């Protein structure tokens, strides 16, 4: 009897329809897959055009696949140390080869020609690229992989920052920087360090005014003083030495004094020797930029090496750069020996270092890259400072009620509306306000940067406000109850906690600024300039402008090859910049 009633009860539950939920789920899945697929196809074709992969001989691809890609994948597998992952990787690589070849041939035979793609390339893009991504992810979880990627990341990142610095010094007066650093920053730092060491709060408080006075003094001295050390010495004194000292301090904090000396000293010595004497002793490289790159890549690498050896895990991962360079060299050697035709890639050393030209093969992006880097640096600083200041004021300092509260709300609504104003309108504003009224000139870096800063300011403000608002009120009250002033609470509790969120918003906004073309056209930025800008008020171009100009050229070589190369360069710089910022943010999130 009991069982009977039980079944009766269970039958009585009935069913609840989930049809709409399931339809919704698959529709959203389909939409996102469609979006990603469209983007992937676009990127694949841009890559093929930029590197001229369509005309590449399969042998060339095979050579580098064997010397570079396979060892790298093997390294990832070694690091992951997981039988299951290895099995999966081998299955996908092998099975994928057969499947792609079969499907590709079938489509070519029965449906029609697929333009600028052969089955080898299809295999690379459809199977090898995702597999590499997966294995990098899995490999980074093992110690050797983490160490190897950390090392390569520091090498590339340091070098990139060094190059960015050298680009910035094209327009910023390094002699003024030298004076400001020597007269302002160094004394200020000494006062601060002395205060910390001797527990003297007067010295610590004096540090900032001392620096400011020194910087102001530097501006005056700049006009008076006539002789200066060479640029190489200036970089050595103002950038390489402090970076090396910072690295040494980091290592010293972990323990060893000798290691600290080595970590700071060795890269510094190397940078100094190459920078000062590199050309003279026939190294082929030298000068201020080499010094910057070596110092900025060398010091983080040295500090990292010390940590890796200190921890003693995953030391084998340090071989990754050797593996990569060795693989590339071996590939080049094989190609050379057997006379395999190399692809005529549009992205090349000359493309990155030469000025634009009428001839597609000689065309370069250098002045536009420099322009973009300078503009982005200025926009980042301007919009970050203004955005954070505005959002802190709106969130922490204004009252919620009364007249002030109403004004705040009005301001708030207007900022939200400004975020929706088309960029052409901002271009007009920049033209009228900065170029004409304030006389910063048409299409100069200052005008362009100010216009772009205004353009992304609403986005920065709104996201920074969001981040500040998400800091729990408990923390503010806790700090207030300790007798902190509002400024102390903001500086010590709210901003550190909101910083990752603020950074995220700024990164997204900067991504928009770097790709803008319309406001640049409005303020009169040049589509093409033939030499890198030498001051903030010289004629500027930016990467999107140059790419836009090329896209209108009559020759097909420009429209397919050079434009694609420009897009790849733009994307690489954008992704690199965002990646660095995201890494910094993650570190800040973990670290605080």
């Amino acid at each position, binding site marked *: 009897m009991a069982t009977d009633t039980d079944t009766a009860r269970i039958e009585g539950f009935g069913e609840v329809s989930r049809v709409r939920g399931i339809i919704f789920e698959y529709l959203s899945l389909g939409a996102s897959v469609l979006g990603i697929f469209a983007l992937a196809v676009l990127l694949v074709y841009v890559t093929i055009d930029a590197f001229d992969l369509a005309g590449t001989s399969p042998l060339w691809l095979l050579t580098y696949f064997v010397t570079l890609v396979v060892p790298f994948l093997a390294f990832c597998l070694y690091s992951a140390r997981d039988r299951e992952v290895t099995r999966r990787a081998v299955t996908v690589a092998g099975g994928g080869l057969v499947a792609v070849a079969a499907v590709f041939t079938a489509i070519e035979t029965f449906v029609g020609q697929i333009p600028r793609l052969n089955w080898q390339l299809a295999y690379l893009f459809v199977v090898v690229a995702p597999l590499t991504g997966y294995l990098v992810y899995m490999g980074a979880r093992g110690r050797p992989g983490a160490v190897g990627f950390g090392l390569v990341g520091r090498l590339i990142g340091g070098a990139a920052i060094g190059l960015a610095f050298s680009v910035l010094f094209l327009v910023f007066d390094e002699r003024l920087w030298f004076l400001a650093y020597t007269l302002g920053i160094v004394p200020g730092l000494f006062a601060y360090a002395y205060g910390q060491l001797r527990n003297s709060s007067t010295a610590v408080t004096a540090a900032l005014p001392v620096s400011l006075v020194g910087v102001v003094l530097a501006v005056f001295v700049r006009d008076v003083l006539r002789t200066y050390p060479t640029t190489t010495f200036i970089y050595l004194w103002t950038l390489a030495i402090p970076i090396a000292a910072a690295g040494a301090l980091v290592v010293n904090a972990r323990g060893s004094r000798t290691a600290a000396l080595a970590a700071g000293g060795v890269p510094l010595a190397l940078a100094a020797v190459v920078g000062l004497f590199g050309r003279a002793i026939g190294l082929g490289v030298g000068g201020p930029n080499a010094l910057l790159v070596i110092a900025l890549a060398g010091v983080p690498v040295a500090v990292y090496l010390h940590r890796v050896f200190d921890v003693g895990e995953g030391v084998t991962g340090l071989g990754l750069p050797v593996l990569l360079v060795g693989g590339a060299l071996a590939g080049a050697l094989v190609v050379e020996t057997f006379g395999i035709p190399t692809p005529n890639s549009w992205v090349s050393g000359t493309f990155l270092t030469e000025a634009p030209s009428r001839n597609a093969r000689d065309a370069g992006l250098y002045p536009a890259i420099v322009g973009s880097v300078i503009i982005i640096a200025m926009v980042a600083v301007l919009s970050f400072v203004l955005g954070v200041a505005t959002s802190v004021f709106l969130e922490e300092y204004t009252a919620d009620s009364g007249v002030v509260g109403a004004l705040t709300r009005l301001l708030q609504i207007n900022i939200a509306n400004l975020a929706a104003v088309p960029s052409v309108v901002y271009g007009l504003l920049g033209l009228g306000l900065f170029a004409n009224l304030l006389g910063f000139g048409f299409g100069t870096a200052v005008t362009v940067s100010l216009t772009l800063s205004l353009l992304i300011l609403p986005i920065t403000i709104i996201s920074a406000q969001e981040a500040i608002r998400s800091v729990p009120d*408990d923390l503010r*009250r*806790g700090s*207030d*109850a*300790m*007798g*902190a*002033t509002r400024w102390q609470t903001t500086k010590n509790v709210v901003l*550190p906690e909101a910083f990752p969120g603020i950074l995220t918003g700024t990164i997204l906004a900067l991504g928009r600024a770097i790709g803008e073309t319309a406001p640049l056209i409005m303020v009169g930025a040049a589509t093409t300039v033939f030499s890198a800008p030498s001051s903030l008020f010289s004629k500027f171009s930016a990467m999107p402008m140059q790419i836009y100009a090329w896209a209108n050229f009559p020759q097909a070589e420009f429209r397919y090859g050079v434009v694609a190369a420009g897009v790849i360069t733009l994307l690489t710089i954008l992704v690199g910049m965002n990646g660095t910022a995201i890494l910094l943010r993650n570190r800040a999130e973990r670290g605080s």
Partner: protein
Amino acid sequence: MSNTESETQTETEASDSLITTDVETGSNGRSAPSNRTAVAARDLNVFYGDEQAIDDVTMEIPENRVTALIGPSGCGKSTFLRTINRMNDMIEVCRVEGDVEFGGKNVYDDDVDPVALRRKIGMVFQKPNPFPKSIRDNVAYGLKIQGFDGDVDERVEESLKGAALWDEVKDQLDSSGLDLSGGQQQRLCIARAIAPDPEVILMDEPTSALDPVAASKIEDLIDDLAEEYTVIIVTHNMQQAARISDRTAVFLTGGRLVEYDDTTKIFEDPEEQRVEDYITGKFG
């Protein structure tokens, strides 16, 4: 006194009568109440907009004693606590009439800087709210913002010892304060509050978000703190008030101070019938 034991004991009896429990009251080994006053309220009225939160309260809180404020929710005891260090200033609709004297001075006088005032009065909140910084930086926070010139590390160690947390965290001073358990976090907040050496410590239901074991540790700690500081604690837990406080103030609805006396007196023989009803759980 062994807190864990009395905790279990009283918890089982909580439902019947509190008055008849054999909880020791006011048993802190401190002799007769000090006659020096740390904080005094005179004719204090507090309004939130049109609503009156505190109704004409006058009371004197003795120095170096634990004073408990009890009463049903919304009776104004937390509001009263926040008037002492002017944390109510943060609430825009809040209006205060009357005097709150601290160190012989009305804290609502025009020449009193609330920020300076709060540096002399520590506060511990209901929910542990350590900053997302290292344990060391949490404790040193007050010292840092006040521009403390002495040996910070020494003061951090002293404060952590004072908050009975030193032995548990001495090897991880650089790890985040958020990695600690709830009870440890609250003790960290206490260490943070006592580091700048305030005169009074205000506690707003400091154990209500903690488990009984952690709560009993905090109670022991409050006992020790009263040696050096004046402690004013808001609590919903009647046994807690009975166990740790020397003086108890009972607030009832409408923000009226109904009875204020030695804890023993309040819990054993209250003057007012309403107070007896409240602490025996007949209403509230």
